[in-house]
């Protein structure tokens, strides 16, 4: 019998996500996948598994979950209040979720997208070579109360690890490169774009987010006359009324609005995770700097396993301390025994 994860209660923005579905761009289907790919990598590092396993993405709020067997889990991305059978547990960490215990995930205290990973990943049916939902394309859909998802095989015994908290959940400065249309924008418009203090508008979803600011719009003269061209996540298009709109993972594949710039892929999680009202500023960098930034970001992801730390638990917050096997959670316990194994 296959073990499953049951969803007893679901926030409105729960979807299954992985690293997406490359290869269908020419047929009009964007890659999609997790809005915050770094959070996928963090969950994978915490559980010591592939970053392309499927996790549950939670926009703004979580839900209530139950596994049919003991399951290792990790929680990454936007920090959310979380507990197992009423006992508060740490975010940005891995834990063991005992069979039939209730995992309750509340609303995000900062950021936008939280992620629940399970050891071995969840295994929904594959569609077009991936497991992720692509809401804009109608592939899969939001998870709902009553859904049961198959669990992959999980032989992990090492949980109780944490990663240092990343500061990407409150907006900040975003590095950008010129886009294919930046030439068509007058220099003073580009300068004003860099000088403007934006906030993330309330309008936004997995397709993209709109920016908010005080002052004039950013539409150049060429306005509605350009030929439709390929568009990618990170591109900042200036829509008809002069508002900048940053495309995210589930974006359209061609666009007819001019684009003032494009966000470095390694800074895109910061846009995706900026909650409504978070401050955002943009700064042009050179292509060389952009490649170097991507190199550093790739190295930081490769180094995630080295940055894991044991989770220090305060015994006072553990209600039934004596019920815990205090050794076997961390090691098999026998490595210290010369006669063992």
């Amino acid at each position, binding site marked *: 019998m296959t073990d499953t994860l049951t969803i007893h209660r679901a926030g409105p923005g729960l979807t299954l996500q992985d690293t997406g579905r490359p290869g269908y761009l020419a047929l009009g289907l964007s890659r999609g996948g997790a809005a915050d790919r770094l959070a996928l990598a963090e969950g994978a590092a915490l559980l010591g598994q592939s970053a392309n396993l499927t996790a549950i993405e939670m926009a703004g709020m979580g839900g209530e979950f139950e596994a049919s067997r003991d399951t290792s889990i990790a929680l990454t991305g936007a920090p959310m209040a979380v507990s197992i059978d009423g006992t508060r547990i740490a975010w940005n960490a891995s834990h063991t979720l005992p069979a039939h215990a209730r995992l309750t995930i509340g609303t995000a205290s900062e950021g936008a997208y939280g992620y629940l990973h399970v050891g071995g990943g969840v295994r929904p049916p594959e569609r077009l070579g991936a497991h992720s939902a692509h809401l804009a394309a109608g592939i899969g859909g939001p998870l709902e109360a009553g859904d049961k998802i198959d669990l992959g095989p999980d032989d992990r015994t090492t949980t109780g690890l944490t990663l240092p908290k990343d500061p990407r959940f409150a907006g900040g400065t975003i590095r950008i490169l010129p886009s294919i249309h930046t030439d068509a924008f007058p220099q003073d418009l580009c300068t004003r774009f860099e000088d403007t203090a934006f906030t993330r508008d309330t309008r936004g979803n997995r397709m993209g987010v709109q920016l908010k600011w005080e002052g004039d719009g950013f539409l150049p003269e060429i306005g*509605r006359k350009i030929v439709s061209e390929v568009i990618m996540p990170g591109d900042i298009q200036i829509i008809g009324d002069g508002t900048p709109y940053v495309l995210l993972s589930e974006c359209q594949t061609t666009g007819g609005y001019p684009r003032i710039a494009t966000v470095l*892929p390694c800074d895109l999680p910061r846009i995706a995770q900026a909650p409504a009202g978070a401050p955002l500023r943009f700064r042009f960098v050179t292509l060389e700097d952009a490649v170097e930034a991507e190199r550093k970001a790739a190295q930081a992801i490769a180094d995630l396993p080295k940055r894991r730390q044991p989770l220090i638990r305060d015994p006072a917050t553990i209600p039934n301390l004596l019920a815990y096997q205090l050794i076997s959670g961390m090691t098999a316990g026998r490595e210290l025994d010369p006669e063992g194994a």
Partner: protein
Amino acid sequence: MTGGGADTTKQTAPRIRTAGVDGMLVSFGDSLSEPANRAALAFRAEIERQGWDGVEESTTSLVSAYLRFDPLHLGHGELKDKLDTLLSDRDWYDAPLPSGRRLWRIPAVFGTDLGPQLEQAAEAAGVTPEQAIKDFTQTRVRVQTIGFAPGQPYLGELPQAWDIPRQSTLTSRIPEGALAVAIRQLVLFSVATPTGWQHIGQTAMRLFQPEAEEPFLLRPGDEVEFTETDAETLSNMRDDPHGGAERSELS
């Protein structure tokens, strides 16, 4: 920092531009033309065939081929050189259309509440609604690119009169299978979406069916003829996986 540095070369056409840190765009023209469209399709097909290391995905737009690549494993200079070499390998504007193309005859209702902007679009084009329907049904159009949404074709090219602009305000929702017109092109919508194109007709086509054996119906290079039908006939075609369309092979 200046805002104008995306160009790596400044030439007429074709030209190669970076598109973000991990993309390159090879454009064969600044506005839509039949040779530029054919060049883009053929050039991208050759890149797919050659399967360069470090290139992760490619696609075409109306006049360009786009490559997404891993800049940590394939440098910008090296990729640009490879593209330059391939560009000078032949006259891409003279390339044949893709093979395996099909002709689709797609029934559509024009005007009425299923195409509420037919009169207004006809007026913008300076023709009568009757002439508009003739133009839409007697012009064999080609899938110039698939894009925006999964399986969604940009179809062209309509007679010169149809060089009408997109609307300045968006229609809040156009349904799946809707037919809309602007800038000498028709778009057949694969998803319900807001749009600036003028809604002139409706088909029973479901262009993207993720669960089906053939999830995407149309391919770039396919040709399309629309045939006029009525609302009741169209309604009966909605259960057909091809929306009542007939498909035949084109050489």
